[in-house]
């Protein structure tokens, strides 16, 4: 019996050693876990080696990953380097994922305060203001979940009404509230989705916005680093943008970067 056990263990031994080899030794040639790349970047940031930190974070993005904290840290790195446009760009990307984060909001406002020129916010239509009031600080995915829950509740109440006929007033009130909330939420979600690929940040220090898409066209206004624009269309190396106070014009694609 003892001999049998010994032979069995001997057969298993190489397997165990193989496992041990895998877990204890980190072959530099093997791909690192994404979290480790992130922590490495943090370490560089702590040592004020911002370029190395940026390269680590960008490596994660190149591998196809993203998260709110990742963009936030990138924004911090660029800010420390004095690169305002890139900082605001990455803060904006982080806002899409974690819009209610207080630290992010603080740093974003701090960065925005350094943007030159007048950041005139054009007044939005009343329905957009209403939808933003409730859902500005809710990310897209969470908003979709909320809408799904509201939608399900709507039908749940209809089902309950089949069995409980006596709750008429409550029933109509609940349906009305759910319908209104759903409509406002849908509007907000639509706006968020539509803005993807449609908003950009000026990354060049200064960019002239021209009336037509060529160099010799008259300059309409100037965009400064960090300013947010709405992209309307592309034409070659130029793209048509709309600025906050409804001015439109053409700017070189290299001067801006999509959020």
């Amino acid at each position: 019996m003892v001999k049998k056990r010994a032979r069995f263990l001997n057969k298993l031994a190489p397997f165990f050693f193989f496992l041990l080899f895998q877990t204890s030794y980190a072959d530099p040639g093997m791909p690192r876990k994404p979290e480790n790349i992130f922590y490495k970047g943090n370490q560089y940031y702590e040592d004020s080696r911002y370029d190395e930190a940026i390269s680590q974070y960008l490596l994660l993005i190149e591998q196809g990953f993203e998260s709110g904290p990742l963009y936030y840290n990138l924004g911090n790195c660029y800010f420390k380097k004095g690169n305002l446009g890139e900082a605001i760009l990455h803060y904006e990307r982080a806002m899409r994922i974690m819009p209610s984060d207080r630290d992010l909001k603080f740093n974003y406002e701090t960065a925005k305060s350094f943007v030159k020129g007048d950041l005139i916010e054009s007044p939005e239509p009343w329905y957009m203001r209403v939808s933003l009031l409730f859902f500005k600080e809710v990310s897209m995915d969470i908003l979709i979940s909320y809408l799904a829950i509201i939608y399900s509740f709507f039908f749940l109440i209809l089902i309950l009404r089949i069995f409980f006929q006596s709750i008429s007033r409550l029933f109509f009130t609940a349906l009305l509230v759910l319908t209104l909330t759903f409509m406002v939420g849908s509007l907000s979600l639509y706006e968020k989705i539509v803005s993807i690929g449609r908003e950009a940040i000026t990354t060049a220090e200064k960019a002239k916005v021209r009336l037509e898409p060529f160099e010799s066209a008259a300059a309409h206004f100037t965009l400064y680093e960090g300013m947010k624009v709405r992209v309307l269309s592309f034409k070659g190396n130029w793209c048509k943008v709309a600025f906050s106070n409804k001015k439109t014009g053409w700017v070189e694609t290299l001067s801006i970067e999509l959020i």
Partner: protein
Amino acid sequence: MKKERILKEYRWGGKIVVIIFFVMMVWITPTMEGLSINIENELKVNPLQNEPNPFKDKIFLKMEAGKVQVVTNEIVPLTIKLLSHGMTIKDIQYPGLSHENISIAGFGNPVQKSETINGILYEVMEFKTEIFAKKEGDFKLGPARLECILLIEKGKMIPSPRDEKTAVETYFGALESHSLSLESDEVSLRVIPLPEKKRPVDFSGAVGNFNFTLKAHPQEVRLGEPITLRMTIGGKGNFDAVIPPRIEKGMDFKAYDPQVNQREGIKIYEQVLIPQSEAVREIPGIRFSFYDPGKKEYRTLYREPIPIKVLKPDVQEARQVSSASGLEIRDIIDIKAFPGRLKKKGDFLYKKRGIYLSPFFPPLLFGLILCIHKRREKLKTDLRYALRLKAKKSGKNGIEESDRILKRGNPIEFYDSLFKTLQEYLGNRFNLPSKGMTGNVVSEVLKSKGLDEEVLKKIKNLFIECDQARYGRFRFEKTEMEKTLTAFKEVFHSLDRERRW
């Protein structure tokens, strides 16, 4: 409303006696003491305004100021007294008076008391208020005026003695009401300016005898958090003229306008301060100066500085780095220690296909539950429908059972089953008692319902065949059983299609 009619008039004992019939309105109101009876007094109320007050020694108005010489903003008590002796007065109004250049507060509730003047005991109704002058000069206050109703013996202009009479007796008695307008004498007031000598620099016009407390809460804050400074001024004097000192906006504090709360004898100011740096160690001491008219001097109350502690803000440690452009960079909050949920880039929920299928499930579920519920309701309420369904189900089951028996090849069992199925089916289908149903009975009933002749014939034949097989000496072969079953199926299907019953 009163209607009166003279019924009879006659002489008796040298006097003329008149018997009067009348109707009067009476209001009966429940009160704490019982019932209050008010009789509308239609007696004419004679105004005495245009006549000199014939009872001026018995009823008059008096106005007295607490002081005849005051300083500006000094509060002076003013008393207006309605004095009466042996009079019945009602409906006493609040007094009014002219008071140019003098501010007057509202009258409080009047106080009733007695006062002896020149040996005569008067009933007094006292109205008290306070006045102050905003500028110096000689001013005349009043005269004060007061309206009331006086009850006098009818035709005699003799005031009614002040003994209790019931409302009815008063009505039937010799009393009549007279409105009376009383006027007091004027009161002179000399207002002198506040002395210039020894006037404190921070004096802002407060006159009276005050006390002053100062509190701050909290006394330990983080940078950027507010401290509430509470200044409480109490005592006696002109609170309207009190403007307490405040902390001005400066290098150490961001100061907001104070909120005021004033009550009887107290005024509270609350001012929000926000320390601007961690180096701020105290809220500076505050002085409050006022003029005490009692002591005829200025007084200053000083409250010591309040120590405070300002801690660092509750954020992660920030580092200060100068930018490449040379701009001074404000601190930002430090990086995130954890990466959060690292998801695929651009992987949002709205891009997933499943999200577009999911909206169909709730309405489908709702529709399904609604249909089931409606069907159940119909089965409960629509008997004909319920029976038709039951018949169909029993017919189908019966056919299947008969089919099985047919395959086994047992004729008696087959015809038994078929007979039972026939009874049950027709009974449910036409709402007839299934037990005891025979071919003749069924034919008659079904004929009256307008059933097709062909189908009727088939049903009748089925019953006959079943009876023959069960009770007769006939022996049915398998082919005959199959024909019978087919016939039954035809009957079943044709009846099932019918919607008339």
